[in-house]
């Protein structure tokens, strides 16, 4: 077995939390159950990974199996990477019969014709997600298995999720190959980024809970039965209920997609008292506002009920899932344009 492959497998196994190692290796399916049983998973991680490498040696693992293990690892722990969302466009309106074999062939052919030294691996998952792992080389060097990009694509959708590596220069190549393989015309990067891949999918696939008004079926909302102490009178009961109602209309009932930040680049004029004479030049005051949070949308949702902000919140904050973006550029309102101009 190749030394590079052995080392790569060893390092990949080391990344897995010890409690999960057996499960991940089982998912990989390259080592048999009997082989896995010979490993003592109570040892140190280093010893376990050495054991795994030895077994892989017995089975003559090659780079393909190592790559599959890497895909499985990233599929189970996708939140360790930052994912960007790309949107593809096409003009034909013909029904697309997405054929996975065809897709793989076209993608490989396009990418390898531009850059021969790449390792490309695919894995299909039950939710129609196709994972692509690309290890990049250069025209003169073999692919570096540690310089990888990952692509997640759901067939017959215009959205692609890419976790690029350091080599941003390979991105155009990657995008081209994707467009060709999926029968689209062009591709552009959206202003939507996060660690949480599933939440990005929820946003663009509209899988998050939107509050639609319907008569039926009526989910009887379980009103939180607080311990009602009759001696306590809520003075602001009406206001509280109004805030709850507005919040529910805006955010819906279910959990919010998980984003870590929202960034607003302001190119607006500073508005001050004319007498104060600040910024005479009348140039836009450039300013960057960034909201960070372990779970941005949930925290925005709880602002008004916690009394920290007025309800309804600014639409600039609440439009994030609907507009599918968390990077904004805000320019000056120009005369008859309603509201600030948010650039696409």
């Amino acid at each position, binding site marked *: 077995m190749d030394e590079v492959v052995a080392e790569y497998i060893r390092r990949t196994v080391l990344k897995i939390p010890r409690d999960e190692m057996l499960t991940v290796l089982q998912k990989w399916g390259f080592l048999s159950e009997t082989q896995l049983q010979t490993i003592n998973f109570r040892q140190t991680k280093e010893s376990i990974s050495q054991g795994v490498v030895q077994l892989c040696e017995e089975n003559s693992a090659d780079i393909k199996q190592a790559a599959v293990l890497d895909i499985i690892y990233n599929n189970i722990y996708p939140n360790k990477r930052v994912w960007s969302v790309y949107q593809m466009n096409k003009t034909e309106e013909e*029904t697309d019969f997405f054929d996975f074999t065809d897709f793989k062939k076209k993608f490989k052919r396009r990418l390898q014709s531009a850059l021969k030294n790449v390792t490309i691996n695919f894995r299909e998952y039950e939710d129609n997600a196709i994972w692509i792992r690309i290890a990049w080389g250069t025209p003169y060097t073999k692919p570096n298995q540690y310089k990888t990009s990952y692509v997640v694509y759901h067939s017959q959708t215009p959205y692609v999720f890419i976790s690029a590596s350091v080599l941003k220069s390979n991105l155009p190549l990657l995008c081209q190959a994707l467009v060709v393989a999926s029968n689209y015309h062009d591709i552009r990067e959206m202003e939507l980024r996060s660690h949480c891949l599933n939440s990005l999918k929820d946003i*663009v696939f509209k899988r998050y809970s939107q509050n*639609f008004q319907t008569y039926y*079926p009526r989910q009887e909302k379980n009103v939180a039965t607080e311990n009602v102490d009759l001696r306590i009178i809520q003075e602001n009961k009406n206001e509280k209920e109004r805030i709850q109602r507005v919040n529910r209309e805006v955010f819906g009932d279910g959990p919010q997609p998980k984003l870590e930040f929202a960034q607003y680049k302001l190119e607006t004029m500073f508005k001050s008292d004319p007498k104060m004479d600040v910024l005479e030049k009348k140039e836009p005051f450039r300013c960057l506002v960034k909201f960070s949070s372990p779970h941005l949308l949930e925290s925005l949702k709880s602002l008004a009920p916690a009394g920290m902000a007025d309800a309804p919140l600014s639409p600039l904050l609440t439009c994030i899932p609907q507009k599918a973006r968390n990077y904004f550029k805000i320019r000056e309102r120009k005369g008859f344009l309603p509201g600030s101009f948010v650039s696409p």
Partner: protein
Amino acid sequence: GKMEEGKAYSQDGVLGHLEMLEAQARELALKQEEMEQQEEKLAGLKARVQELRAQRDELRAKVELQQKQLLEKGVVKDPAQPSAQTVLEWKIKSIKAMLQIFYLTGISGKLTKRGVCFCISTAYEGTYLGSYYLDILTKPEVRIQRHSVPIFIPLEQIAKKYLQTDIRRFLSVLSDHLNAYAGRRYQADQFEEHFSDRIEGTLQRNSLCNLLVFNYNVSSNRKTFLFNVKLLYGDLCCSLPTEATISCTPSAPASLAEMAAAHSEVFRHTALHKAFDSLSNAKETQD
């Protein structure tokens, strides 16, 4: 009297007198007609009153009978009139039933502040599958504000064609797409759940479930051969394939071509999760 008056003017006014008499007669006739009409009306109304009284008596008798029956069943004590509460409850119950009917027909809607919110429910052969929503604004023009339709359904295309001109057609076409998709997916899921052991490898599908590929074994003359099936659902509003291509290894005997054709027919006309049962039947008749 009048005759004396008439005599006084007899020379100039005989005709005039006659006119006067005519007018009087006419008046009297009119009055009589009026009276007759009134009497007719009155008689009619009296008859109507009788009718209504009879109806009322009938209904009263019915109510008494039912109350007697209820009393015998020991349910309710009196009331001659149901309380406002029970009337309200009955109204709510019947409206709920009506809304459920609308929901079960597959397309229902509710007016919102700025337009309508539609709910399209999908079902396949008696099993209710998911619901999808569209918030549609009606001013200044008809457009979709937001929705929960899956991204791979060609919603934009359908909206471009029909939304502005014929919203009913828009909803109907969209409902066809969604129902067919739900049906195809249901068939594929059921097929995977119940027939995984009958196929070699896994079922290959895509988001729209309009191209399904799988392999299964067939036996002929005590030898087994692998059939590769490619089901193409060309009509997105249909949950049966438009093409079922079965291919075999080149070394397979010619007799297998007949079997492949027969199986292909089965796949074209039978729901996927029921197809394998039909295949076994077809096989039995062959052997």
